């Protein structure tokens, strides 16, 4: 019957997780905040992948988006401004069984934590990093961030931001051992979900920049993109991201660039924020890059007896 073998047995998993198993209370972001969409996408991926909640750790720094772990019903680490990446790497270093999601903002990652950003990309540990980029400091009430557009009026630059914004894609593609770079927008949930899913499945540090609206301070910065999808460039490739046609047809501009091609990836990133269209999708992906996890997990299986014996030999090296 139904094409099943006769000896087929029902063997449901002992635990089945629903969305509720990842939902940790009511988020206290402003109504209309783009963070809600990211939270939902991550919770859905956890559900789809049936990740045991106790094996998921959400790590963040400080900022609006860094409240993220509080709204996941998993383990979480809401640490210091700019420092989620060292913590995430430390968590992952000896716990390859844990799935680590990092929530960081444009101030957290690209400003105060920029030093760690460079090195975390180079370590290329198997973690997923989500840069919630709303182009402004929201939690501290409207100061210029490194990604604020030139001319944006904020409390620290009331006559408009002086400098052109830092381009995170351009930066990250310049860091040694970068292995996964993608971009998504909070107002297109299926695309956001697909990009984060691809990031989750990547072995290594997957860096996803999410253009995310702040309804309070930068409601208008992505207005043109929202209302004119022609200003976005959908990146589709069988080794990157392939969107459902129903979604893909929203985007008049598409690129079929090969995400393993760093040169093309850099050209696409260079256009972002300049004259060209804003890319969405997987910009760069190289699953063959070395991951630091291979080194950090060495020796994890040693028993106490083995350690005592080895220590005895170490002490003997100093014996007289």
């Amino acid at each position, binding site marked *: 019957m139904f094409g099943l073998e006769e000896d087929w047995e029902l063997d449901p998993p002992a635990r089945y997780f629903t969305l509720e198993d990842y939902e940790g209370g009511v988020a206290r972001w402003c109504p209309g905040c783009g963070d809600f969409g990211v939270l939902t996408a991550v919770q859905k991926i956890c559900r789809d992948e049936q990740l045991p909640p106790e094996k998921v750790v959400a790590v963040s720094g400080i900022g609006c988006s860094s409240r993220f772990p509080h709204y996941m019903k998993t383990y979480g680490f809401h640490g210091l401004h700019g420092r989620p990446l060292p913590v995430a790497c430390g968590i992952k270093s000896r716990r390859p069984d844990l799935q680590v999601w990092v929530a960081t903002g444009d101030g957290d990652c690209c400003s105060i934590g920029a030093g760690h950003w460079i090195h975390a990309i180079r370590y290329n540990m198997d973690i997923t990093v989500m840069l919630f980029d709303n182009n402004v400091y929201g939690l501290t009430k409207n100061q210029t961030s490194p990604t604020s557009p030139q001319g944006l009026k904020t409390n620290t630059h009331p006559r408009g931001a002086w400098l052109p914004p830092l381009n995170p894609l351009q930066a990250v593609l310049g860091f040694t051992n970068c292995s996964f770079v993608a971009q998504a927008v909070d107002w297109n949930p299926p695309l956001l979900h697909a990009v984060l899913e691809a990031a989750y499945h990547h072995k290594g540090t997957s860096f996803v920049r999410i253009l995310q609206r702040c309804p309070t301070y930068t409601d208008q910065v992505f207005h043109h993109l929202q209302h004119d999808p022609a200003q976005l460039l959908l990146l589709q490739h069988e080794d990157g991201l392939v969107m459902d046609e129903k979604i893909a047809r929203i985007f008049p501009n598409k690129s079929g660039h090969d995400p393993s091609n760093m040169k093309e990836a850099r050209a696409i990133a260079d256009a972002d924020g300049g004259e060209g269209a804003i890319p969405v999708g997987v910009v760069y992906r190289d699953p063959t890059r070395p991951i630091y996890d291979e080194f950090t997990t060495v020796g994890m299986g040693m028993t106490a007896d083995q350690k005592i014996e080895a220590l005895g030999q*170490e002490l003997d090296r100093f014996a007289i």
Partner: protein
Amino acid sequence: MSYATDGSTAGTVGPRTQVREQIVEIVSDSGEGAQKAGQAFGAVCAKSGCGVWTVEIIPAEIKPPARSRAGASGIRIRFGSKVITNMGNEADVVIAFNEQVLYGRIQQGAYRKGTRIFLDSKWRKDDSPQIREAFETAIAEFREKGFIVQEFPLEEECAKLIANPRVGKNMFVLGLLTEMFGMNVELSLAEAAFLFRRKGEEVISRNQDLIRAGYAYGQENAEVALEVPPRELLTSQIVVNGNQALALGIMAAGIEVVAMYPITPATSVSHHLGDSFFRVGGLLHQAEDEIAAIGFAVGASYAGKTACTITSGPGLALKTEFIGLAVMGEVPLVIIDVQRGGPSTGLPTKVEQGDLMASLYGAPGDAPKIIMAAATIEECFHMVITARKLAEAFRGPVLILTDANLATGVQPIPRPEPREEWIAPPIDSSPWDPNVTAYDWDPETGLSPRPVPGQPGGEYVLTGLAHTGDAHVAYDPDSNQKGMEMRSRKLRALRKTLRPPKVHGEESGELLVVGWGSTLGAIEEAVEAARAEGLSVSSVHLRFVSPMEPGLKEIFERFDRVLAIGIQYTDLDEYAPADPTTDRRRSQFASLLRDETLVDVDSWSQVHGQPLSPGIILDVIRKNFSQHSAAAGRTQP
């Protein structure tokens, strides 16, 4: 000078004078191998059964200009027929590769009248008339000061064996010292074989020839023929410096992750770990900066793995925000601060005990944490094991303070026997009791069990925000007050388990000297010398500075005067008389003791970048007594 009747020792020509202890220095320009030779000689002394303490003489630069007065690089080896706990006072015998580097040592008071200085004679024949003149001037000046200066053809003798004597003379010196003090030359040859084990047979045998040549030179030109009888050893020994002891302690404690960033003088801990940590399954992570180093360790610990970070003063300053988070989020963590001179870059290679207040109060807000201080090289080993356990039991960071003196001092210590209970148990992945919150504080002790990622039902968010017992962000005033109380009570709970410190000397008397950290050996030696002179002085030495060991007030009150001694800054009246009740800034340690006991603790300390010698402390004690009796005399009618 009396000669022993039976001075015949293997390999010596004449009778040898027996002495209880000797202090030898080898001083040179950087890169001439003095430290290597001295460490090898220290090992030979230790293997001969002597108590040993070696201390490196380190310039701040890697290669300061040759023949510069402040550029002395070298080593002091103090050895004797007893346990040696400090660098001692003035040197007895000095081997100098040039005369200029001696000026710096003389200025530091390292030598006395009668100190024998053996100086390479090659400068007398140097091509440069300036150098020849400087050499002769120096020798005249040194003799004027009462040093016994003797030239010897060091490089000339070495040149008979090797093309470039500059890089081989250190082994000649090792052979010479071996002979001077009647040690067995086979031990020195074995040290060379060990030192050059990775460089091949040819290098080993060339260096051994140099040792034999130095030894033979000593036999033929015996100016010094001394012997330091061995002490009785009851246990097997290892020879380590404080940083090696820390590295071994980290391995013995079962710590799995050490994250660090290079900083002097802490870095050499990571060298030893880099060499060996993987053998016990450990991970040494060299992070991109000091902040990332502690962040990585905090992350690993949050995930249930025992973790440690190692630093020195400036690094400690950078780590303070994370230390505060570890206190707030109650993350077990061992933090080791190998102190150096401060503030700012200060004296990077030199000793100071100036990080006391920074370690206690460095983090913003009230961040109570456990702070211990190792007083000996042996304690550097055992304190890590204790700290690891305390960090877990009390769920928070534990700081261990050592310093540059312990870091580079080399001493034989009893070989520890590794035990299973020293090693951290594997992490618990069993389901978490749903009735227990993430911070289920015991109201009396503030202690709580800790859920670890992987435990189903224990999911919580560690946050640096004020939080409630169930790890939710606190939006009410009472929760913040309660959290602060709970974290503070942990120190009170620990203090209840501590014993009052032991008094060294009589339990009561006129003067009590109080110390902490690496000054232990020098203080106790000075106190014993002062007691032998009839002065009523005792000492106590603290291992715990937060919480402070109990019973201090009671001990202090049994003495007329209490004096805190250490290597940190205090206003000394010699320089600028001050009103002691208002103007005077006391040492950090004295201030803490006053706060703890409400006793009028006086302070004497200095920041010369050098370990305190017993002689300096003895002078301070004597002066304290003479000033006191003078003051008492004035008040009499």
